Structure formats: C-alpha cells, structure tokens
C-alpha cells in the first residue's frame, strides 16, 4: 500500500470517529468501563503480590541456643552466620543475650514471684537473621540444625510456610484474574464490534460504491480498523485517568484503615511506580480490542 493511500485511510478513519459522535462515544465508554474493571483487578493482584513480598522480606529467622551452650559452640554459630552474611545470603542479624532475654521476660511478667527458680542461667541466647532471599531459608535451617549449640526443639523458626500457603492461594487468584481478563476482552470485542457494525451499516452505501469502483478489501477495511484503534486508544487514555484518580482515593481510604488496625506493615502501593505499566497494558488492550472488534464487523460486508 502506498504512503498517500495510508494517509488517506487514516484520515478517513479519524473523520469517522469525529463524525459518528454518538457511536464513538458509546464505544469509548465500553472500552473505559472494561479497562477500568480490568485495572482494578490488576491493581489488587499487584498489591497482594507486593505485600506478600514485603512480608517475606521482613521475616526473621530465629535461632535459640541451648541453655547450656558453651562459648565455643556459640562462637561456631556466630562464625557460621558471619560467613553467610559475607556470602550475601544473610542481609543483617542481631542477637539477644541471656541477660536481655531475662530482662524482657521480667518486664513482660510484672510479677517477680513468677520468676522464682528461673535465673539468668536458665535463659537462652537467641539470634535473629534477615535473609536476602527468603527462599534460601530451607537450606540455612538444615545447616544450622547440625550445630551442637543450637536448640533442636523448636529452636529454629521461620514464618515462611504460612506465606507459602498464602502464595499458593495467590496463584489461584492470578488464574482467576487471567480468566476474568479473557472474558472481559471477549465481551469488549463483542460490544465494540457491535457498535462499529452499526457505523459500517450506516455507511453500507459508501462501501457499496467503493466496491463498484474497484476498491480493494484492505482499502475498505482500514478506515474502520483505524476507527477501532483510535476508539480503543482514546478509551485507554480516559480509563487510565479514571483509574489513577479512583486508585489515589482508594489508597487514602485503605491506608487509613490499615493504620487504624495497626497493620502498618501492610499498605497500598503508590500509583506512580506502576503507572507506566498500567498505561501500557491499557493501551495494548484498548488497541487490540478496538482493532479486532472493527476487523470482525467489516468482514461480513466485504463478501459481495
């Protein structure tokens, strides 16, 4: 196809959008609604994933030494942790000495009589490790449990299993999101193709004339496809604006609630960092929906 023809077809398509204001408006609204729904689901999924990741990063691996661990056994454990830190597996760690543990217990009990017969010598030293990659915990726990000084009875703890279960659920959630996306897409394509079919019908005389004069199918089809693409893109931009506003509002509300519930580690992500990704997804969806929708609606009218 020649450049001037392409220009002409793009111009025709653009004119069609402007001329058929009502139809265009209806189609754009369809795209806006579909993408808005899609975006909200997408944002929920992104938020859950990122919060789980954050929770994982905050997890600490706790190690209790035996009450009667020797200082040599203690040095062995510290040496091992230091070595893992140097290797970039442990990001940071802290320890709680017997005395600190004893004080903490004392503080939390309020009543010294309960501590009768329990002295500093009965307390155990503990270590708290943050891992660079939460998934390295299994290997680490296996290695740590071979040390003499480490308490083998519930002495090593890590909350990862619970989070893994959560992630399993998230995976299923993601499949559901995927299915909803596909359904949404099909519905939008149908709605758009229906709307564009009306504009095709309104211009059936023009199509007929074009065919009598010897227009190629592509020449007849392209203005409508341009129209669909444009409608899809305009819908994507409007829906993006709508989504960002709605999300910012939602963010304030939900973060306030989380703060009230003292769940401040959980929070809704900022829109800014995901904005570009969302915009690209919207544009692609909008353009694909519009393009496919109009492609189908003209096809029928070409077979004469």
């Amino acid at each position: 196809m020649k450049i001037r023809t392409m220009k002409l077809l793009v111009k025709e398509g653009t004119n069609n959008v402007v001329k058929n204001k009502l139809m265009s408006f209806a189609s754009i609204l369809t795209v806006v609604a579909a993408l808005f729904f899609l975006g909200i689901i997408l944002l929920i999924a992104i938020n859950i994933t990122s919060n789980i990741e954050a929770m994982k990063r905050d997890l600490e691996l706790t190690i209790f030494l035996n009450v009667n661990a020797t200082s040599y056994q203690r040095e062995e454990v510290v040496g091992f942790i230091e070595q893992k830190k140097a290797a970039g597996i442990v990001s940071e760690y802290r320890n709680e000495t017997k005395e600190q543990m004893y004080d903490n217990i004392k503080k939390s009990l309020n009543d010294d009589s309960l501590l009768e017969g329990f002295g500093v010598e009965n307390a155990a030293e503990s270590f708290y490790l943050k891992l660079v990659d939460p998934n390295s915990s299994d290997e680490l726990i296996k290695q740590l449990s071979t040390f003499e000084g480490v308490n083998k009875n519930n002495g090593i703890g890590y909350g990862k299993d619970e989070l893994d279960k959560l992630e399993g659920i998230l995976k299923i959630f993601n499949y559901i999101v995927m299915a909803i996306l596909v359904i949404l897409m099909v519905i939008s394509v149908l709605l758009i193709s229906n709307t564009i079919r009306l504009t095709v019908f309104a211009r059936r005389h023009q199509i007929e004339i074009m065919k009598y004069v010897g227009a190629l199918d592509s020449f007849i089809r392209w203005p409508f496809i341009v129209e669909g693409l444009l409608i899809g893109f305009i819908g994507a931009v409007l829906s993006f604006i709508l989504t960002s506003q709605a999300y910012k509002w939602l963010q304030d509300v939900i973060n306030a609630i989380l703060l009230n519930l003292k769940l401040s580690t959980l929070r809704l992500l900022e829109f800014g960092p995901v904005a570009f990704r969302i915009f690209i997804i919207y544009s692609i969806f909008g353009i694909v929906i519009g393009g496919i929708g109009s492609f189908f609606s003209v096809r029928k009218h070409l077979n004469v």
Partner: protein
Amino acid sequence: MIRFVDTTKVYSNGVVGLRNLTVRVEKGEFVFVIGASGSGKSTFLKLIMHEEVPTEGEVYVNGYSVHDMVHSEIPYLRRSLGVVFQDFRLLPNKTAYDNVAFAMQIVEATAREIRRQVPLALGLVGLSKKARAYPNQLSGGEQQRIVLARALVNNPAVLIADEPTGNLDPKTSLEIMNLLEEINQRGTTVVVATHEKGIVDTMKKRVITLDHGEIKSDVQKGSYSDEN
C-alpha cells in the same frame, strides 16, 4: 470484450434471471438492452460486474473469466468497468469534485493524476461549474452526470448503465444518452439497459431484446418496434 456462453442464472429462490444466454459485445460497441420488467436486463449487467455469479455457463469480460473468479480479482475487474445506476449513488458528504476524485483515490492514483483527470471528467459531462456543490444541491440530471464522470475518470474499457435515465425527465434523459454516445465515440464500450422507447428508436444502435431471461432479438441499428 464481453462474452456470455450458454449462461444461466437461477436465483436462490428458484427464479430464473437468465436462461442459456449466448451473446458477444465487441470493443467499441454501443448496445441497448431492452425488455419487459423482469426480463433479465439487470441480471445481465450484474453478471458482467460480478455482483451475481452465473449458475451455469461462462462470462468473459475484459479478459477476466468472471464465472470463475477468486475474491481478490473482483476489484480489478471492476476497475476495468464504469458502472452507472438509476439511483445515483453519490456520497452525500462529499462534493461533486470529491466524489469523482474518490474513485481515483481508491485505485491509488497520484495527487497529480487526480488534479489533472477530475476536471477533465467534470468538463466532459459539462459540470465544471458545479464541482464544489454537494449532491443534494444538484438536480437529478446533474447528479447522474457526476456519476458518469466518476464512472469515466479511471478510463474504463467498458461502461455499463442500468436504467441511467430512469429517474429523469425526457429532455434530461436525452442529454444523458447523448453523453453516453459521446463517451462511446471516444472508444469506450457502452452497454445500457433501458425502457426509453423514444431514445432507443432514434439512436439506431444495436438493440438486444430480452424476454423471460432469453434473447428474443438482437438487431444492429435496431429499435423498440423490433421487439415484436
């Protein structure tokens, strides 16, 4: 140029449009196709431009085997034809000039060719002054001239017209027919289906008379009276 070989058209409802038609139209001819309503005139023209396909037999037009054509070939057949209808079929939202230019844009003519050819075509049909008018600002006769200009602008080998004067008064009808004759004299083959008795009788062209889908008579320098 145009050749029908034992061509039969039966519509999907069982009605026979044409029955075992064999006929030839040579390059440069001017042919009237006449006959009672329902005799198959429009069917004949529709088969030429592949708006309908024959049920049996063969149709050859400008070197194309129209009876045996793939979809992608149809536009090229149509580009070798100019088509004129009773109802004028202009685009209402384009000016006379743009309606004609549109036909050239469709076949991907250059802007220069368009600027040269469109005024020539409008001049030929005598409507240079109305180039900027929209169809609803033109009389029926003027609109049909625009259609003629559009049909001619790509220099088709064959022009087919289905009752081109059906909606026009006698004087305007005569003007349109004279224009068709002029176009024919420039070398274009012209086939006109019509009910215009007076004009057919005076123009003394080849007349093919159809009756119930069959050729009743085919006369050089014929007239309506040859029908009986």
